[in-house]
């Protein structure tokens, strides 16, 4: 029943897409400056039906309707309601439907909200966006149909991977999809801009809100994913340079560069071609990331959905996208002359772009090189954190200096005498760095420079905040918050890296282990029965040897029944100055448990500063609205 409704809705949406393309194409030739009413209507219908099809799937998950293969494979009656709903997008087919939903919703919103812009440009955008929608709808119908039915209907489902049953992970994919799929709209807009000749400043204004929206969601999505990894995976880290994490960073670098260049295009009406390239690149990288993850070429914790037949489809789609966009770009490309003064804001924004391009290329090489090697020579290698850390970290130092100083320069040409202030701030940062050094056993030159540049950026941003309080220039605030967030993020990651304590040992119930700072006593163990899992919970007493404060932590080993899986739940005590992190795993055929104890200073501040970066973006969105 639900299967038929779902498939009918999806087919209906496809037909509407064809209709929209057809009508929009003929509307292009009409010289009237207003878009025909029926295009709006069709778009609205299309959006409604798409959203309905998604809710059909949600209902199937809520009701545990196992006549759908997708529900049967990814859900179970004993699962809590929240995870039944989250299960909708916790699998390949469902997430593809969510993907189509975002494409369609963005298409409609772009059409409605950009009424002040050129008609031809809007129609072309609509046409390209609908071509994308059709591409993904075909993929969905032919290869990954979430509404495929199964007969006879199974009594019970197979269950959702327990590692995915986590609140952070329930919202992580939708956030990322809004971020990544949201890029599609300015991919279409860029193509439309090339074809309609609607370029320059007005083009920048038409896409800027969309760029910011997708940037905010991408940033937030990546942070939430990282938080999930920290709390759920139980490795005590928050960034692993895992291929899929890298795949999500690539479009982020491109979009961050785009967001900055767009300001130059809007204010100075230059860099048009570069902005177009970034628009195209951001979405192409998003689709490429999806291809690499979903086809199973990349191996990582995320490959819950690898299947080469999907890969073939996405690859064909990706090729068409790249070649058509590149061909149109080259045909319409006009040479621009850039005339930038060295001491101007646009120069610094361009510098930001160069850094972003460097980070992007580095991560791209680290990610693709093993694939190349595998395909061309049959050799399998793994490019790990050492590569990324060595190549990326040193470049973060000058990057942070430019991030602080750049926005202080005016457009076109600036006579700003900021050198003295900069020197004083560097000196101050150096002094604080020495204080940090006193507490630590000593660290490398690189760490020193990282701390100094991070503190410099923080100081500089704090000064900016002081200026803001004086002059109340609201437009500056979001930028300051984001840049301050980045400075704090690097600073706290540095502190965390420098002062983390990690101990690994085996303990039996009743035993006590003394480390240099803590006494860890394994008091007892108990079994807890929960709705969909059984948990073995250890009771640990941790005594701080400095002040004799004791606290209890209970790491768990969970045995999920559907599907049968073991997961290790870390016990994490988060405090304002540090996190205590304890995981326990069973050692086979013995009474011993392997205990991993970590003290990680300022963990929560890493999350807070990362969230500040995206908060800046959200603030800018609301500010711009009030202004209008």
């Amino acid at each position, binding site marked *: 029943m639900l299967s038929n409704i779902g498939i009918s809705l999806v087919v209906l949406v496809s037909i509407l897409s064809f209709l929209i393309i057809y009508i929009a194409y003929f509307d292009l030739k009409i010289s009237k400056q207003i878009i025909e009413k029926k295009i709006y209507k069709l778009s609205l219908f299309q959006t409604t039906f798409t959203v309905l099809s998604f809710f059909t799937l949600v209902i199937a998950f809520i009701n545990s309707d196992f006549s759908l293969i997708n529900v049967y494979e990814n859900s179970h009656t004993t699962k809590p309601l929240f995870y039944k709903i989250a299960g909708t997008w916790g699998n390949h087919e469902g997430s593809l439907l969510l993907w189509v939903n975002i494409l369609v919703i963005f298409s409609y919103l772009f059409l409605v909200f950009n009424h002040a812009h050129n008609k031809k440009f809007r129609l072309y955008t609509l046409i390209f966006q609908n071509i994308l929608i059709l591409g993904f709808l075909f993929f969905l119908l032919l290869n990954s149909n979430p509404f495929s039915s199964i007969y006879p209907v199974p009594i019970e489902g197979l269950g959702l991977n327990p590692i995915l049953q986590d609140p952070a992970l329930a919202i992580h994919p939708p956030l990322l999809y809004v971020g990544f799929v949201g890029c599609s709209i300015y991919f279409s807009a860029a193509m439309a801009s090339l074809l309609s000749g609607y370029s320059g400043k007005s083009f920048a204004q038409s896409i800027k809100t969309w760029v910011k929206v997708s940037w905010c969601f991408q940033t937030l999505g990546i942070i939430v994913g990282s938080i999930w990894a920290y709390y759920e995976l139980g490795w005590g880290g928050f960034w692993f340079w895992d291929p899929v994490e890298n795949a999500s960073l690539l479009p982020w670098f491109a979009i961050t560069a785009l967001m900055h260049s767009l300001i130059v295009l809007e204010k100075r009406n230059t860099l048009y071609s570069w902005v177009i390239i970034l628009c195209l690149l951001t979405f192409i990288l998003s689709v490429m990331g999806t*291809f690499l993850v979903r086809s199973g070429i990349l*191996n*990582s914790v995320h490959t819950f959905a690898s299947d080469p037949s999907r890969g073939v489809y996405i*690859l064909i789609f990706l090729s068409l996208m790249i070649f058509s966009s590149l061909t149109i770009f*080259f045909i319409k490309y006009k040479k621009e002359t850039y005339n930038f003064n060295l001491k101007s804001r646009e120069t610094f924004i361009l510098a930001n772009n160069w850094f972003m391009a460097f980070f992007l290329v580095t991560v791209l090489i680290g990610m693709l090189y093993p*694939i190349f090697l595998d395909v061309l020579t049959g050799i*399998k290698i*793994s490019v790990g*954190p050492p590569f990324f850390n060595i190549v990326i970290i040193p470049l973060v130092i000058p990057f942070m200096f430019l991030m602080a100083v750049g926005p202080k320069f005016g457009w076109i040409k600036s006579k700003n005498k900021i050198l003295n202030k900069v020197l004083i701030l560097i000196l101050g940062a150096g002094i604080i760095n020495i204080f940090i050094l006193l507490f630590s056993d000593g660290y490398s030159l690189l760490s020193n420079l990282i701390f100094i540049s991070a503190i410099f950026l923080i100081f500089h941003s704090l000064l900016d905040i002081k200026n803001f309080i004086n002059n109340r220039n609201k437009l500056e605030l979001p930028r300051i918050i984001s840049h301050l967030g980045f400075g704090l993020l690097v600073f706290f990651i540095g502190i965390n890296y420098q002062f983390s304590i990690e101990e690994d040992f085996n303990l039996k119930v009743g035993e006590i282990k003394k480390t240099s700072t803590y006494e860890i006593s394994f008091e007892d163990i108990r079994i807890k029965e929960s709705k969909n899992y059984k948990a073995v919970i250890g009771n640990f007493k941790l005594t701080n040897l400095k002040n004799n404060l004791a606290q209890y932590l209970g790491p768990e080993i969970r045995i999920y029944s559907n599907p049968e899986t073991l997961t290790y739940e870390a016990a994490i005590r988060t405090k304002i100055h540090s996190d205590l992190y304890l995981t326990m795993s069973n050692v086979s055929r013995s009474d011993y448990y392997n205990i*991993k104890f970590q003290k990680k200073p300022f963990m929560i501040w890493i999350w807070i500063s990362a969230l500040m970066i995206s908060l800046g973006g959200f603030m800018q969105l609301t500010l711009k609205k009030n202004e209008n």
Partner: protein
Amino acid sequence: MKISFVKIIIFSFIVFLLVVFWRGLKIDNNYNTKSLIGSRISNFQLSEINDDDQYISEEDLKKNKYTLINFFASWCAPCRTEHKYLLNLLNKNKEIKIIGINFKDKKFNVNNFLNELGNPYNFVGKDIDGKISILFGIYGIPESILINNELTVIKKIIGPIDEIQYDDIIKLIQ
């Protein structure tokens, strides 16, 4: 569209990339490593990861009926997936000794890695700059070499050991 050198370069690069992706989809995990099989391990010396004074050389390996030399690192994700097969091998078979060669890693991380996942190695040798691994003809990690008591390579596994490779090893040493 005017055809220029830059455009040709960009197009060919993209075509290359897409072809690699295409081939990547079809790649299977059977490698042709026949040329390495049958060659003999020549003289080497390896210090223990936690104790520089303790070391092994090819003479020690002659005492074992079979030796599996496994190249690993704590930062290498596929090493985690193959680890359980190494542990199984250690538990189920008395004929085989496993030597781990730790590739470009930190002592602290290696010990954590082994504490976390269990230690299947009879000896863990260190190779901080990766030079010893190169002598063995290692391109990347994980890789493993199975040798007999005459130091002849009877199997080479590139990439993580999986179920099929594991069964192969068991068959070879019976």
